[in-house]
């Protein structure tokens, strides 16, 4: 199964901006390469919210070990990880 990489990145960015906004932070300037936790725009609970949204939106089931910087640390990483998971499905 293939996914539209640009659409995925756009959706992730939109969700990230919404979560940051709920914390009175502006994430509109975040780049695809920025390491999300390092930006300080969202806290752990916010990242958790992003991960739960990611799983639900793209019908993924992630193991706890898969939730790491390599797989989900940036918008690019999340989109690439999703493409890998879907191609393996």
């Amino acid at each position, binding site marked *: 199964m293939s996914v539209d990489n640009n659409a995925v990145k756009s959706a992730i960015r939109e969700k990230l901006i919404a979560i940051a906004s709920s*914390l*009175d932070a502006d994430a509109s300037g975040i780049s695809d390469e920025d390491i*999300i*936790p390092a930006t300080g725009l969202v*806290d*752990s*609970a*916010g*990242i*958790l*919210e992003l*991960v*739960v949204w990611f*799983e*639900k939106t793209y019908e993924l089931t992630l193991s*706890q*070990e898969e*939730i*790491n*910087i*390599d797989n*989900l*640390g940036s918008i690019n990483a999340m989109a690439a990880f999703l493409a890998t998971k879907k191609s393996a499905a």
Partner: protein
Amino acid sequence: MAYPLHTPRVNNNDDHVQIIELSVKEGDFVKQGQVVAAVETDKAIVEVESDRDAYVLKIMSAVDAQAAVGSVLMWLGDSQDEKVTETVATPATDKAASNALLQQPTAKARALIKKHNLDIASIPCAGERLGVGDVEAYLLKAGSGTPRQMATMPAETIDKIPEVAGSLQNLSPEGRGMVATVSWHRDQAAHGYLEMEYDPEPWDSYAKAYASENKLMLSPMLPLLAYQLVRLAAENPRLNGTIVNGQRYQYEPINLGFTVQADQTLYLTVIREAQNLSPQEFIEALGGIQRLAMAHKLKPEQMTGATLSFSSMARWNVSRHIPLLPPHTSIMIAHAAPRGSNRAVLGASYDHRLLTGFDVVQVLQALVKKPA
């Protein structure tokens, strides 16, 4: 002369009431103001008093029967041989029926039995009639089994419907849990609260290094703080207990409760047997259960049975929050870290029946020190 004693109206909406107690039998002499019966509707129980000094000539209803408001409940007379003109079947005239009357619970006992949904047959009766004391003794004994039984006892209900227009809504399971928590905290715990400011920088640095080393997405600082609490409870079991009927109840497992706000729902997620986990296992277990909470997919055992707890409202930028103790726990740690203040706060709600302020200060001092 015979005088009718009428069934009273209890409220405007009910034209019938249930007879829940007959305190007299035919032939008895009653004084003015003496309670002769009790009647009930869905909203209230009312005792019926004799309006004169008189003999009970004829009882026109029976316990558990529905009686129309205004109907004759019983006939009273100046002497025992007064004629009663109304001919209505009399339910409780023979000796067996009179004995059965004596074995009925009192009105207040019956109300308590109903409130707690108890089986009358299982409640020992100390005297001729089952009284409130019998029911209370039974409840106390039932509550001594395990603390969980006490925790699931229904919270006190508000009997009176407000006069302002409105409607009753069912609570969600989480809402009912909150009612139970608040009621236990209010009715049982001797609540104390202490807090301590600390410099968060050493803990932040430690957590960042830990996250970097293990490539973690989520900051492990709060999980590591909570894990530190577990280690302290393992060293000091008094943190991991409660009071039941005047005795300390020592928990064997350390089940750590950790609050998670998921949309509009506040969960107290629970990591069971936390004392058996390594720091990394604890972080992973907590991360997993937090994800389940966020997705509203927790199982009952993942949100019940906490023996001590941890909560943080740092993300909401509050400077202080004083948490309510979950039922049958002795301590809950509260973390706050106001943005831009270069300070953080660790507070503790505690049950003063088990822990002193000095005990709690020692816990807070140990928590603010980052792990070596």
